[in-house]
């Protein structure tokens, strides 16, 4: 069995929106296990708790109660030293939603170097990591450009390179495609898939676009701080009503075949056509 890289037990997070008011429950007793090297899509509408989950894993938010294990080690901010906490943060990279608000430097390669500089990597090694990271995301040609000359998709790839230069084992994408146009979304999704496939990086992709989850190994649907669905994309998509109830869309083809009463949850146009063809042949034989 593959190694467990993320594990949470009865994870809760709540906060007081206004003083004196009732506390808002963001995560309600979440139990989650993620295996090393897997590509997990976390789906949910705004306010479902998915972004908070991401921040808990990057130690940017401290859970109200419950336990978190990362890399087989229980996280306890009171007993861990600052160095240990920063080491966890390095191993869990995070890419955020707004591409503009995560780039620090005025030159692409300087920005990619920011992470390794922070953890005190040797200059020659930083250089090597920066070149390699830019190569991986296909932005080598833009190394000396200024971020504000880039498109949204390109900026987001630079942000990914900045995380890669820290050599993380898990990368959490917190709605990293939400602000991009279709071309930018495609660029970023291709990069994410490549990282998972070629580098074996564990991916946690948080999104509210169903169609982005198709390539994941596993889809988790969050609603109101709870996991409501968990399985392969096909398994999850087949629960059309539950997905809708969680405030999400199902792909058109899935909806069509669901309403035709077909099983098997086709996802692509070809699969849909296969299923419908089978239905028609079946009908013709019966008549």
């Amino acid at each position, binding site marked *: 069995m593959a190694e467990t890289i993320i594990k949470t037990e009865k994870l809760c997070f709540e906060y007081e929106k206004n003083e004196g008011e009732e506390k808002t429950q963001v995560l309600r007793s979440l139990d989650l296990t993620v295996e090393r090297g897997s590509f997990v899509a976390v789906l949910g509408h705004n306010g479902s708790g998915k972004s908070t989950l991401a921040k808990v894993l990057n130690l940017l938010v401290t859970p109200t109660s419950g336990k978190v294990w990362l890399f087989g080690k229980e996280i306890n901010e009171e007993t861990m030293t600052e160095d240990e906490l920063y080491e966890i943060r390095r191993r869990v990279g995070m890419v955020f939603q707004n591409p503009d*608000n995560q780039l620090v430097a*005025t030159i692409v390669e300087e920005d990619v170097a920011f*992470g390794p*500089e*922070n953890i005190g990597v040797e*200059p020659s090694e930083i250089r090597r990591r920066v070149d390699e990271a830019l190569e991986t995301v296909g932005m080598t040609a833009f190394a000396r450009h200024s971020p504000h000359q880039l498109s949204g998709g390109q900026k987001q790839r630079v942000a990914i390179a900045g995380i890669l230069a*820290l050599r993380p084992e898990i990368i959490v994408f917190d709605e990293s495609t939400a602000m991009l146009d279709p071309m930018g979304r495609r660029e970023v999704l291709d990069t994410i898939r490549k990282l998972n496939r070629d580098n074996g990086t564990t991916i946690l992709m948080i999104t509210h676009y169903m169609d982005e989850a198709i390539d994941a190994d596993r889809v988790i649907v969050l609603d109101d701080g709870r996991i409501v669905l968990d399985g392969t994309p096909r398994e999850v998509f087949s629960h059309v009503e539950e997905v809708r109830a969680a405030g999400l869309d199902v792909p058109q083809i899935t909806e069509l075949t669901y309403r035709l009463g077909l099983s098997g949850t086709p996802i692509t146009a070809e699969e849909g056509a296969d299923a419908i063809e089978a239905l028609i042949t079946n009908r013709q034989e019966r008549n």
Partner: protein
Amino acid sequence: MIRDITLGQFFPGHSLLHRADPRIKIILSILYIVLVFLADSVSGYLFLVLFTALLIAISGIPVSTLVKSLKPLLFIVLFTSVINVFWNREGELLVSFWKIAIYTGGVFTAVFMTVRIMMLLLGTGVILTYTTSPIALTDAMERLLSPLKVLHIPVHDFAMMMTIALRFIPTLLEETDKIMNAQKARGADFSTGSLGQRAKALIPVLIPLFISAFRRADELAVAMESRCYRGGKGRTRMTSLHLHALDFVLLFGLALAGAGIVLCNRFVPIYAI
């Protein structure tokens, strides 16, 4: 469009001056300023002008670009010259008309002042601002001032603030443009009315702009923290600056020019003031 603005005057290139160490360039431009004030004779100024011309030639910055950048300052230059021409009453009387009298001293001072201001702008420009990217400049400042850390002056933090400011100026300018357009689409009027009315009309722009700037700052802080930023502590840099032969040559060149000016002043002191 606002996004086309280039920050500062940086003009990308590969000249000797572009390649020199930015720390040395900061020192060079300070020395250059001293040089400008050393000149106090026609021959000294002539030497200075030639030397600056040489620097411009080395930098490879098109003269038209430089001339364009001087234009906005033309008024100040002319104004100071005119004042000098009329108020300085040293030397021989040249022209006298009604209450106005122009003396040779005035003319020379005016010409010297003009040349001095122009050379200051051009010289420091080609040594520093035109040939050094803002980020390299900030970086060099941080390194030059790093001895001050001993006195608990947060040099790194200031440099980081500068870097972030440079990074976000274009973003915020673009945003201002966007918000102004959005409010214009709701009938806001920024171009007519009294000064007070116009200032008031800016409120719908400034409030969203501030809110957005704070939101960005907040998100950036989280992103920096998630990339293991913890201040200057234990930090390394990708590009470590090393002094090369070129840097020493430039320093030596400037020292020679200084000597040249002093010699000109001393031995060919035409119209020395």
